[in-house]
Structure formats: C-alpha cells, structure tokens
C-alpha cells in the first residue's frame, strides 16, 4: 500500500515542479510591461474608417540605464522588471526601449515612431534595406519620405512577422532605421548619446486579432555573426506584437 502512496506523491511532486517551471518561464517571457497603442482619432482607408493608433519606440547603442543623467534630462524610463533576478539588464547591450512588448487594437491603422540614437555598419542581408508592408511601402526619415536605405547606412531594422495561419492574418512589416553618422555617434554629446536621434515614422494596417513577434534583422548583437546576445534575448532587440 505504501508503495502506491509514494508513487502518487512522486507523480504529484513532479507535476508540481513542471507546472512551476512553466509558470516561471512564462513570466520571464513577458517580463516587460506592454505598451498599449494610443488612439488619436480615425483614419480613412480602403477598408473604411478605422481607429488611428500610435506607438513610440527608441533604439540605443547601449542601455539608457547606464546613462542616468540622460534619463533624468529626458525624463526617460526603461521598463524592466527588476524583481526577476535573471532579467538584470545588460547595460552594454544595444536595446530598444522603453518596452519591447507592443499591443495594438485590431482593424486599425498603426503609426510607429522610432527615435534611433545608434550608428551602424552594413546589413548582411540586403533584403532588409527595403521598406515593406507599410502604407505604400514607405516611411519618413526626419520628415523625408523614403522607400529604402542604402545597406551601409542601416542601423537596425524593425521587422514584424507571425506564422501563416488561418486563425490570424499574415503580417509582415520591415523598416530599416537610418544610422547616426559615425562622428556624431562617437562624440556622444548628450550624456553619451547623439543630441538628435534620427526620427523614423511609418504606418501600416492590422487586421483581426493575432500574435506576432518582431525583431531587428541587422546583426547588432554578439557572437554568431552578431546575432547573439541582445538579438537572442527577450527585451532588447526583439519583442511581441499583439493585435487584440
């Protein structure tokens, strides 16, 4: 009889451990609070009048948490959940901010503005120097309309995609970010960052609800041709894009 009790206890303890591990991993996966798009009016589109929503992101050569004076001057807060020990920020890693988890409403026009404070080198994959998936496959860089950036002028990309499914529409958006010139970047005149970021703005339509991911396709990380470190870790150069 005791053998059966022990067996049941072992099974229950095992199940509990697996459950606890899953819950912990799930929390780690979404450790940054999401940024919900702000609705500002409506937009007339071929699909009718839809909500027009806005998101704002920044791209830094290293963590703003390593530039406290800059954060103070710009009243900037990088959203990281410091209560989870393993998510201690790597201050020297290139990163998007203030969060990498984005939420937008379904059937809306989404406009994203990215302030890019980083320099760059040359894309390894020329595919990503074209703007794709935005309205007219275009973006604006510091107010000027562009449909591509020369491969050697790209700092990062903002690339959204999902998986082909009959449960959610296919969504693919790629926007290359114009780099800050090397001299200006290295001068770091504004508490270590360039005084004026390149401001990239683009808009695209989203359909019904779905879960997507986004990442940078410029190899700006460590190891593996630059695809390691911040490129492979939640909260730096990739994140979630949820349409709800």
């Amino acid at each position: 009889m005791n053998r059966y009790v022990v067996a049941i206890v072992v099974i229950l303890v095992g199940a509990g451990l697996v459950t606890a591990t899953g819950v912990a991993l799930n929390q780690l996966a979404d450790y940054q609070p999401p940024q919900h798009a702000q609705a500002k009016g409506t937009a007339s589109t071929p699909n009718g009048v839809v909500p027009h929503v806005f998101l704002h992101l920044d791209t830094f050569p290293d963590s703003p948490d390593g530039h406290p004076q800059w954060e103070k001057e710009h009243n900037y807060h990088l959203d990281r959940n410091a209560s989870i020990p393993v998510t201690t920020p790597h201050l020297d890693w290139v990163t998007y901010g203030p969060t990498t988890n984005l939420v937008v409403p379904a059937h809306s026009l989404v406009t994203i503005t990215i302030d890019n404070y980083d320099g760059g080198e040359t894309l390894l994959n020329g595919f990503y120097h074209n703007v794709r998936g935005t309205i007219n496959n275009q973006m604006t860089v510091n107010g000027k309309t562009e449909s591509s950036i020369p491969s050697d002028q790209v700092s990062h990309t903002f690339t959204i995609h999902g998986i082909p499914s009959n449960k959610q529409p296919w969504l693919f958006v790629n926007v290359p970010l114009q780099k800050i010139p090397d001299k200006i970047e290295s001068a770091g005149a504004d508490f270590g960052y360039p005084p004026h970021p390149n401001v990239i703005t683009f808009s695209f339509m989203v359909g019904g609800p779905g879960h997507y991911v986004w990442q940078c396709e410029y190899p700006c990380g460590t190891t593996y041709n630059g695809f390691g470190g911040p490129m492979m870790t939640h909260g730096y150069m990739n994140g979630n894009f949820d349409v709800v």
Partner: protein
Amino acid sequence: MMRRPRWSSDIKRVVLIWAGVSVILIVATVIIPPNLAGLSRIAAPRAGDYALTMVVFTILSMPVLALVMVFALYSLYKGRTRGRPLRDGPPLRAGKGVQIAWVGISTLLVTCLYAWGLIFLNRADAAPAPGSNVLNIDVTGEQWNWNFTYPQYGNAQSDILEVPVNRPILFKITSIDVDHSFSVPAWAMKEDAVPGDFTYIRVTPNKMGNYSVRCFELCGLFHSYMEAPVRVVTPASFQSWVSTQPTGYPWGIGGAGVPNTYGPPSDVSK
C-alpha cells in the same frame, strides 16, 4: 531432466498468430487516416513518392514487427513459471534451414528496400527534362525569417514564397547566421540552410493552394515563428504577382556572395 518443448505445435501456433496479427497491421496501415500518418497534404510528385515509400516500407515492416512481438510474447506466456526457476531452460540450436531462411529473407527484404530507395528517392531529386522552364529561387534564412529572391525576374524579392503550379523549381539555399532548415512539408522537401554555403533542392508543385515554409533546425528564440506563407498559383497569377514585387540585390547577402563549397547540381551553372 527438463522436458524439451514440443516445437512443432508451438511453431504452428506462433505462425498462425503471426499471420493474423500481420494481416491486421497491414490492413490498418492501408486504411489508417492519411492525416494521422502526416500524408494528408501531398502537393508535389516528390511528396507522393515519399508518401508511397512510407506506406510500402511500413507494410513490409509490419510482418517483421509482428514476428518479433508475437514470438517474444508467446515465449513469455509459454515459458512462464511461478517463483524463481531453479534450472536454466533447454539450449536452443537452430537448424541450418532456419538460419538460411532468416538470413535469406532479411537480405531479400533489405535489397528490395534498397532498390526502392534507388528508384523513388533518386527520382525525387532528379533534374527535370532538358528545356524545362525551371524557376530559380534563392532562399535566405535569417533569425527568424525567410526571404526569397527571383533572379529571373529582376531579383524580385518577397517574404512570401509564391510559385506557379506545375513548373519545376530549383531552390538555392543559404543562411547568414546559424544553421536553419528550409522545408515545405506539403512538398516533402527539406534542405539545410548553412551559413557560408549554398545547398540545392528541387520540387515541382502540382497542386494549387496555400502551404507554409517551416524551419526544422532549432535556431534560437523565435525558431517557432520561423515560417513563411507558400502560395501555389496559376502561371498568369504568378507573372502578375512577381512583377509587382520590390527588387533587391542579385543575391540576398548584400550582393557580396558566399563561398560555394559543395557546388550546384551538375546541370546547374554556378
């Protein structure tokens, strides 16, 4: 002295059970729903060949499986005893005929499988007939996206793999970061995408529809999202679509090219 078992009646019984179980397993193999066997979406001749190979090999292996299982289970049942046995069983000495039979049948089976593989699996990767209008597509894998370049169409590029039905395709595949694996399950097609090298694979889609590309090499954080839509459409629809795609570099890698260690198939120029 331990009594020698009556082999003839046991063998008769085992053979009868084996034959019955084999028939049941073979029938189950034939009538099992295709989607349970992963053969439900066959959209290219090579996929048909592979599916047929799976079915034939499974049918051939069922009697072997049944023989081993029936013999083992029958022996367990027949040789059962209460408590710990005090003596070993009688020694088994197979006759020459039995040894010749099992070696001969095994050799015959393996030879048949080998011949089948030579014919059908080789046919899957065979070059199309000379003069075929082969569509060349360059495939680049990058964490965690696929992109496709159509060199015969001004290097049109897309995140979607769109192809015309019934036209032979030659994929030229590479990766720019880590190993990926380029696969369209509905075409029974899978080839490694290796950084610094090109790999090649052929297919002729023969069924219009929507499918997906998947990465089959665990490649990092968003590996599970490394998919892309596949659309098999009419030739006219493909022409219309490809002419509207943005063009890019001659090859997906910034135009720089990569070393070609393995070389292309013999009928393809570098």
